[in-house]
């Protein structure tokens, strides 16, 4: 979208634009409006109230017409403030570009100087400059511009450094162009948006500052008046005749507010990071907006998911991250959920406890039943009481998932104390015990360190200890070993395996690695593009995968002692889930695909334990309907 469209669409910025336009129109028209002379005194008519004696806004302490003085003062204030902004931007940008472009010692010396200037509270610098040059409007303008130069210099330098070593600049340099020409033709056009942003956010402030210096009597000198000096002169009559103060004060407020609104709009329109509204905070629990009735569960187990559907809504687009996923896990059982990144496996896991970031995530249907209780759409308090206590998560990358500023022990204690009212000391003892259980050496000492002081493997153990803190019934492990090296990975898997045998835990283990599934999981569900494409007991699936995609995934695992087996990467990419093709989502990448594969809806079919979503599976599965069309015109009829 174009800059101006974005700006206009922002209602507040648009309001600012209109107000500013009106003020500017008034100010430009001031010389031709039928106004009193701004500086003609009439002491007989001093302090007239608004609308008295033909003065719309009344008169000031010398009987001068306030409306006329207001408009002329506004003109002066705007001219001075805008000039200050332009000077500051020009010199600041020049300094910043020179520092950023030449780098090295030049940069060092300039930026040190800039840092020195920024070490002052700005007004001290402005006051010192005015003290040296003497009070007066031009000197105030110089002072305000000068104290703002460092701000521009620093910002522009940062951007220039980023550009100065881009290919096109190097190319220009190699072509033997002069520095000045490179700066003017290559650098300046690229830093202009930054200058505009910096100006639009500081111009209101500079108008305030020049008005401030005038208010102090250091800016415009009588009889000439800008808004600040009008306010300063009116101050002595504040109590007896407040309208003389209110008039210029409100004008400053209106102008600065309009400029700030406009400036924010300009920044939002120019700063790509803010464009898509990327900075939204996730709610405490994922939004649930059911599009149909709650499905009745078919399976049984500790945790049963039926027809779960989760979407991401970004603007007009809808990404169907999870489409009709049904899973279940029994006590002491480990279910593997496997798929490439983006297959929806993590979103499935996070949906269960309402942890999908929302916005943009929305659960639109399905059911997740833990111990007879429906979790999808459950009130937040219910969900919270189960989180970590009954159903716990282990996340990937514990450096990001552990709080960086709390000690490991404190984070464990908190996990315990949010569900059990025990003393800090008791919780701490239990925390140390948990660390020992996950085989962290010197657990007492380790409880007192911060996550960044631990190794990746140790951090992951802390993540596991935290999941175990309240002895949950279900643990959902989202790629807990992906970031770890192979030996540590093996240790962690063994640890999880022991724990589920000892405690009868149900584990849902999410991974993209069939090797891990083979080691740990009783059953496996394979996900592709938000759907389950095959499910069954791990060994059966490994031995004789039915879905071509599963076969490919298994082939990706290198095996030791198998001689020179090549790694089979799967060609192509998974489809974008905002525009899934009809039929089988894998069909475009599948070498067995037929015309029928790309039509209609292909169901997940099979018996109680094994199911596959494929018209032409690689192997026969009990309970599957034969493909509808074994028709002769399909030449490559294979498989079923």
């Amino acid at each position, binding site marked *: 979208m174009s800059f101006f469209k974005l700006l206009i669409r922002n209602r507040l910025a648009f309001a600012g634009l209109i107000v500013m336009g009106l003020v500017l129109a008034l100010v430009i028209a001031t010389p031709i409006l039928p106004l009193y002379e701004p500086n003609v005194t009439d002491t007989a008519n001093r302090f007239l109230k608004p609308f008295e004696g033909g003065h719309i806004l009344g008169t000031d302490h010398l009987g001068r017409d306030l409306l006329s003085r207001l408009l002329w003062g506004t003109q002066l204030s705007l001219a001075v403030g805008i000039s200050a902004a332009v000077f500051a931007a020009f010199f600041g940008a020049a300094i910043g570009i020179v520092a950023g472009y030449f780098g090295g010692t030049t940069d060092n010396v300039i930026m040190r100087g800039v840092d020195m200037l920024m070490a002052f*509270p700005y007004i001290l610098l402005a006051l010192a400059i005015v003290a040296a040059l003497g009070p007066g409007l031009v000197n105030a303008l110089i002072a305000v511009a000068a104290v703002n130069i460092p701000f521009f210099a620093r910002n522009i330098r940062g951007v220039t450094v980023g550009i100065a070593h881009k290919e096109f600049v190097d190319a220009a340099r190699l072509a033997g162009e002069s520095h000045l020409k490179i700066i003017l033709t290559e650098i300046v056009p690229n830093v202009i948006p930054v200058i505009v942003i910096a100006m639009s956010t500081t111009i209101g402030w500079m108008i305030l500052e020049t008005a401030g210096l005038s208010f*102090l009597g250091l800016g415009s000198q009588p009889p000439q008046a800008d808004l600040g000096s009008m*306010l300063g002169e009116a101050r002595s009559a504040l109590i007896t005749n407040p309208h003389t103060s209110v008039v210029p*004060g409100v004008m*400053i407020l209106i102008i600065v507010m309009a400029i700030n609104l406009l400036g924010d709009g300009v920044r939002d329109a120019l700063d790509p990071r803010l464009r898509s509204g990327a900075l*939204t905070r996730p709610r405490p629990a994922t939004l649930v907006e059911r599009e149909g009735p709650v499905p009745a569960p078919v399976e049984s187990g500790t945790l049963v998911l039926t027809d779960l559907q989760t979407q991401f809504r970004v603007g007009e687009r809808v990404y169907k991250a999870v489409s009709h996923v049904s899973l279940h896990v029994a006590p002491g059982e480990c279910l593997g959920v496997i798929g490439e990144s983006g297959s929806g496996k993590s979103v499935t896991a996070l949906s269960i406890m309402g942890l999908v970031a929302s916005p943009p995530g929305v659960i639109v249907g399905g059911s997740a039943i833990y111990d007879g209780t429906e979790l999808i759409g459950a009130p937040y308090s219910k969900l919270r009481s189960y989180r970590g206590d009954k159903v716990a998560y282990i996340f990937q990358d514990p450096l990001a998932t552990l709080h960086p500023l709390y000690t490991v022990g404190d984070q464990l204690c908190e996990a315990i104390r949010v569900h059990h009212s025990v003393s800090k000391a008791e919780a701490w003892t239990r925390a140390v015990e948990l660390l020992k259980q996950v085989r962290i050496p010197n657990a007492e000492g380790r409880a007192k360190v911060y996550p960044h002081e631990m190794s990746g493997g140790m951090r992951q153990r802390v993540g596991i200890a935290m999941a175990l803190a309240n002895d949950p019934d279900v643990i959902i492990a989202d790629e807990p070993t992906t970031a770890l090296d192979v030996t540590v990975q093996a240790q962690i898997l063994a640890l999880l395996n022991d724990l589920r045998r000892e405690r009868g835990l149900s584990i849902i283990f999410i991974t993209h690695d069939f090797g891990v599934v083979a080691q740990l999981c009783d059953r496996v569900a394979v996900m592709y593009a938000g759907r389950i494409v095959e499910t069954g007991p791990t060994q059966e699936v490994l031995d004789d995968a039915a879905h071509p995609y599963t076969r490919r995934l298994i082939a990706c695992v290198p095996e030791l002692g198998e001689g020179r087996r090549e790694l089979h990467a799967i060609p192509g990419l998974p489809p974008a889930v905002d525009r899934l093709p009809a039929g089988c989502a894998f069909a475009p990448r599948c070498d067995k695909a037929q015309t029928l594969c790309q039509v209609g809806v292909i169901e997940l079919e099979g018996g109680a334990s094994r199911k596959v979503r494929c018209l032409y599976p690689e192997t026969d599965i009990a309970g599957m309907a034969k493909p509808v069309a074994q028709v002769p015109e399909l030449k490559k009829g294979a498989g079923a």
Partner: protein
Amino acid sequence: MGGYILKRLVSAIPVLFGITVIVFLIMAMIPGDPALAILGSYATPENVEKLNRDLGLDQPLVARYFIWLGNMLTGDFGRSFSLNRPVIDEVLDRFSATLILAGTSLVLCAIFGIAAGVVSAARQYGFADKAITFAVLLGISIPSFFLGMMMILLFAVRWKMLPVSGMYAIYGGGDLPDLLNHLIMPALALAVVATGVVARLSRSAMLEVLRQDFVRTARAKGVPEGRVVWGHALRAAMVTIIPVLGVQAGFVLSGAVYIEMVFQWPGVGRMLVDAILKRDILLVQGGVVFVAACYVLFNIAVDVAQSVLDPRIKT
């Protein structure tokens, strides 16, 4: 920790040095005879000559700088001609009044600004967020001197709740309640702009943090939402907010100049403005250097606080 503080103090030396150079250079821009500028146009020739000798004004620029610097290092900031008093005495008296005012405002802006930012972020796009965003916009757009004047009209003149101006009552005042009574309005008026800025930045810092994985972990543990926001998220956001408070201290000190004028607060800002209008150059010079140096030291304190707050910073 002690070593870190020392290291930061040492690193401040060049900055302090730079501040004196900048102030000196600005003052060297004064057109005409500096001794005349310092003493005012009614100075006798003998006085001008004596000052020229004392300050080395007849010497080259560099020598003059070092004489000035040496004098300051021994606590001699010169003598104010308009007050007929050593500059340092006057500055110290006035600065303590400014510290009370600006310090109170800084605390107020930290408390209200952070609270508003957190509420705003946690209720993003909700009513509270919109209300706070509007209040913040109003707060950062209103000139503090105008706001101060309006507060006087309302609270002092119309409702007679608070004294119009000054730091103590002229008769029978001077105790703490009296001081607080006089402090409320100027401290609030001064805090408004900074509160707006702190609220804005706190909101965006919180929005940034609330998206982080460790917040999801806290929720997955079953931590109640209030604790997730005011504990986990705010704790992490403070790392971004504390430096903002350091910068705001500079803005509060700057705004104090206007507020001291409006409320007749006997602070260093009013002293500087009076000194400029009376062309009392030595008083301006000494005041600016002193306050800027204090501000540098304050920012070191902010850095130290930051290192306490964030164990990832190597100390």
